């Protein structure tokens, strides 16, 4: 693979990832952690915090 082809391939991959907006989604188990808002809400925010 020559240098130009390589640059093209890398650019294609980078742009492709950005365009798809594919941010990784983690599976975060809720368990019996404190929660407010409906359990079937379309959006769930899990906050990892330290009170201090």
């Amino acid at each position, binding site marked *: 693979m020559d240098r130009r082809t390589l640059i093209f391939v890398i650019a294609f991959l980078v742009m492709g990832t950005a365009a798809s907006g594919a941010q990784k989604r983690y599976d975060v188990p*809720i368990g019996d952690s*404190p*929660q407010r808002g*409906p359990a079937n809400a379309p*959006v769930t*925010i899990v*906050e*990892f915090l330290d009170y*201090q």
Partner: protein
Amino acid sequence: MEVSSTLKKVMTSYDGKVRLVIKNVPYGYRQYSVASALAALAAGDQGKYWEMHDLLFARWPQLDPESLVRYARELGLDLERFKQSMDSKRHKDSIERDLKLGDELHVYATPTLFINGRKFVGEMRYREFEKVIEEELKASR
């Protein structure tokens, strides 16, 4: 500390559409981190988790043991029960589980948020929440 009041605003403006879940990842080297998390969970045993949660943010950095008991009194909790709850293995285990989960999810800083599984490290402004939540609501329709 800002994130809590921003989140409160988020919960109000997206009432019914957003669920908030708390995982406790107290840093071991901070003096009152674990005790504060235990105080919130212990207040939860008397149905006052979120009241204590808010109070801990509001009164930060006063989180020494005497202050925690004072907050419990302020919330009208049964103090004997509160102290017993704070010592309970159940809550310590729950914090251990959260810490383990945090490790697995590579949570190295607080706050770290997962919005429908999408990870955000550090404090977020209201506008940022708005953007992500709108995206998620659109995707869920």
